[in-house]
């Protein structure tokens, strides 16, 4: 029996690094300190045993060798004129580097799961920057925490305990009692239920409400209508007073802002509000990143290509224009003629029309698990689980880089090994 302490959880952007795992006979027997989701992720589920292939997507898969699957995958990619390499966020940075190199070789588009998550936040960062901080800064200092369109009780279960709401710190020894918690959402979530103040907006009116708050903050309350997005003006005026009275305020936002009607403009406006609040007191704003290493992909992609995701290598040099080069853009335009889905599940998390396009074209899936992407795949290559069976790097939601430990020995090849082989084979096929 081996006990591994200070292990990291490979599920959400909290990247909790205090996990204890008990291992016996290369099996994880017990997971301590993790949340319910983390335990499920680390313990794992029924795996895809061997590589599988099929020509007819309506037909059954046939088990094949890794060499056969890699050969077939390489032929599909090398023969494609507009390949899409999508997923990545559930894999380590070492995998991302191999993926970007393959995208270069192929002249492919590479995009990650942020495309249906926080990629609009990056668009807002292009416009306004991002006044942020590491999570420990919030733990030590924040006396006011706002969750806007985010629901950590469900999506980041230990966030409040470790970093934001309950965490005790140097300047805040009282933890929860030393903080005011405000939740802004369109329905009373379980997070809203534990807030000191809950502000309910009409769905899709975040931009209006943020604009009203900015107007009030700028001393222009007179121009604000009596009710904005379903919220009475008095409540907004009071909220601005509360925000200004804090010594250190932290705003955490989620899909409520990135996925509703105004998309990145919501974030743009929210960042402006935070920047303006800094004229009065200290404020920071942080996106609640979903997958544990979605932030890592954005970082690796930025330092290798200059852009965070949705990078198109068709010109030989990186090109980036979400709305044109993001995964759903090219799928909906039916440009994509082959796709490799790795460490992300487009089949489950893309709109039906995008999945329909995946069903029309050759699809390679690299993943430990059978999921909706498997249902539309032609070549399926099962791999080891990053962060459980493979060590390497991931970036917490606040950009802190951490090294994941290996908990047990892998029973499958790693993503890196598979990508290296595909890249090598693609080069040969293309005669480079």
């Amino acid at each position, binding site marked *: 029996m081996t006990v591994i302490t200070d292990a990291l959880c490979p599920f959400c952007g909290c990247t909790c690094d205090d996990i204890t795992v008990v291992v016996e006979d290369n099996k994880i027997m017990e997971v301590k300190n993790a949340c319910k989701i983390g335990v499920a992720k680390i313990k794992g589920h029924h795996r895809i045993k061997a590589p599988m292939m099929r020509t007819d997507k309506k037909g059954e898969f046939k088990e094949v060798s890794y060499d056969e699957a890699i050969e077939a995958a390489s032929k599909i990619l090398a023969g494609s004129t507009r390949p899409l390499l999508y997923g990545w966020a559930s894999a380590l940075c070492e995998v991302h580097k191999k993926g970007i190199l393959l995208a270069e070789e192929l002249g492919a588009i590479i995009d990650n799961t942020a495309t249906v998550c926080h990629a609009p936040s990056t668009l807002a960062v292009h416009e306004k*920057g991002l006044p942020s901080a590491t999570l420990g800064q919030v733990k030590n*200092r924040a006396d006011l925490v706002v969750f806007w369109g985010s629901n950590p009780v469900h999506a980041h279960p230990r966030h409040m305990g470790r970093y934001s709401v309950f965490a005790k710190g140097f300047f805040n020894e009282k933890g929860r009692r030393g903080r005011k918690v405000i939740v802004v959402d369109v329905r009373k979530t379980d997070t809203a239920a534990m807030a000191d103040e809950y502000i309910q907006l009409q769905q899709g009116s975040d931009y209006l409400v943020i604009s009203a708050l900015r107007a009030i903050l700028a001393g222009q309350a007179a121009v604000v209508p009596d009710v904005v997005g379903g919220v009475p003006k008095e409540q907004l005026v009071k909220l601005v007073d509360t925000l200004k009275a804090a010594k250190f305020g932290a705003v955490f936002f989620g899909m409520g802002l990135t996925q509703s009607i105004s998309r990145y403009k919501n974030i743009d406006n929210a960042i402006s509000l935070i920047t303006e609040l800094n004229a009065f007191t200290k404020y920071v704003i942080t996106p609640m990143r979903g997958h544990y290493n979605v932030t890592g992909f954005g970082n690796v992609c930025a330092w290798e290509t200059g852009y965070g995701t949705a990078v198109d290598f068709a010109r030989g040099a990186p090109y980036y224009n979400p709305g044109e080069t993001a995964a759903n853009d090219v799928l909906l335009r039916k440009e994509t003629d082959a796709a490799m889905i790795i460490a992300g599940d487009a089949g489950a998390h893309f709109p039906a029309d995008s999945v329909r396009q995946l069903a029309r074209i050759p699809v390679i899936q690299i993943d430990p698990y059978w999921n909706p992407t498997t249902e539309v795949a032609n070549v399926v290559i099962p791999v080891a689980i990053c962060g459980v069976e493979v060590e390497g790097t991931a970036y917490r939601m606040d950009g802190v880089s951490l090294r994941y430990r290996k908990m047990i020995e892998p029973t499958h090849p790693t993503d890196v090994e598979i990508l290296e082989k595909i890249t090598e084979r693609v080069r040969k096929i293309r005669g480079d």
Partner: protein
Amino acid sequence: MELLIKNGAVYDPKNGIKGDKTDISIKDGKIVKSVSSSAKIIDAGGRLVMAGGVDGHSHIAGAKVNVGRLMRPEDTRIGIKPRTKITRPQTGYTVPNVYAMGYRYAQMGYTTVFEAAQAIMKARHTHEELEEIPIIDKGALTLFGSNWPTMDFVREKDMDKLAAYVAWGLLASRGYGVKVVNPGGGEMWGYGKNVTGLDDVVPSFDVTPREIIVSLMKANEMLGLPHSVHLHCNNLGKPGNYKTTLASMELANQVKASKDRQVLHVTHATFNAWGGTNWGDFESKADEIANYVNNCDNVTIDMGQLIWGSATTMTADGPVQYANAKLLHAKWGNGDVELEDASGVVPIFYVKQISVHAIMWAIGLELALLTKDPYKVLLTTDHPNGGPFVNYPEVIALLMSNKKRQEEIKTVHEAVHKRTKIPGIDRELDFNDIAIMTRTGSAKVLGLLDTKGHLGVGADADIAIYDIKPDQIDPSVEHAKVKSAFQSAAYTIKGGEVVVKDGQITATPVGRTYWVDASVPQEHTDIMMKDIRHKFKNYYSIGLANYMVQDAYVTHPKVVKAGISAGVN
């Protein structure tokens, strides 16, 4: 593998060679006395030969740089080059991708570059990027100036603990030296505030910037670190800050150097040599700074030269970046690091007709030209704060040609006439001065002069050959040729391998990462670690077990030993 460079007009200040035709023999990556007759020969044909360039202050890797990239797709879109058989794609101008960083430095004949600031907690990220920068040797300076353990140990006046912490912090971050940015200010920015001078007390920690600077200099010399404390002064970016800079420089007198180098390096002095009381009466005080440096032997500076056009300011000085963003109405990236420091990223565009920018442009040149000894003033642009490093050749040309400066002065805001001394300075630097400011001096300031910055036997075979014949050119007149030659090396040789020929990348070997392993008595470490463990248990948001940079992130290390028990000196 052997290589012989013949017929070069060699400038090797350390070895007293000033343009003499000297052959350079190379074997197994080092400069040797002689090579066999089977050595490959490069005929320099009378062209200028120098050691590979050494940059002691440039923001090339890590969290701030990547925030710059993510904030500035408009910058990434500049300088795009597709991949080739040898090179990965290049993007960016002020915030290039990792590949462009390495290629572009090598193309200018630079072979060693130091990242100027990393927080320990984010050092893993810095090393991830450094690992991917091709060709050049590199390292990173580690921030200590607002770290809670630093301030605690300074307050307790416990130099043993402080030195042990610095040694441990360098190990944890795989850092090369002690960087101090707006000491105390980083902590105060945690609540949106700042220190305003050397004697402001940092609340809750009860220390002053003065105490932090002096204590860290003492710890630095106790440990006998190769480099001195590397200081970004308090009040940077504020008119009138030259007084704080001078007062900070004077602090060096309280500390004795442990090695043949400065006690204090004051960085990007362009931003710290400001007179006046506001933007209206803003003026250069570069003469005061240069005068101080001329009359002391324990302080060095670097220019931080301003370059016209686009730049990206990035610094651990969080409050100055908020002020910049407000002043410029620019987008603002802020990145406080718990218990350690602040940071900020703000784009800027330097304009010839803006008086403040014109004066800043002059300040950098004044600093270089009024400081008599080129060993005391390094050529930098504080990339990408003053401007991108690819503009070093422009700076070289300006320093070598008064004619070029006078031509330029005609095109900039008239304030340079009244509020700087640059129009009246006719000094023109020669190739020897430039070699010092761009390699020999930088290597000396960094404590690397045994193997870097010179061409003597035993040095690393890092060499640049420029397409210019020193005995046939008047740099004062033919400054355009000088600039063009330094932009595009005829040859760059890194560790004995030709990596650039005629300005084109020919090979992309992996460079090494320098870091300092400083030993201290174990009992000092043990006592110090009690405090550190307390901080991790209560205040850090990650565990101590996951804090230190692992070997996996420094795959080609060059470990420099130092420390108290190592018997340095």
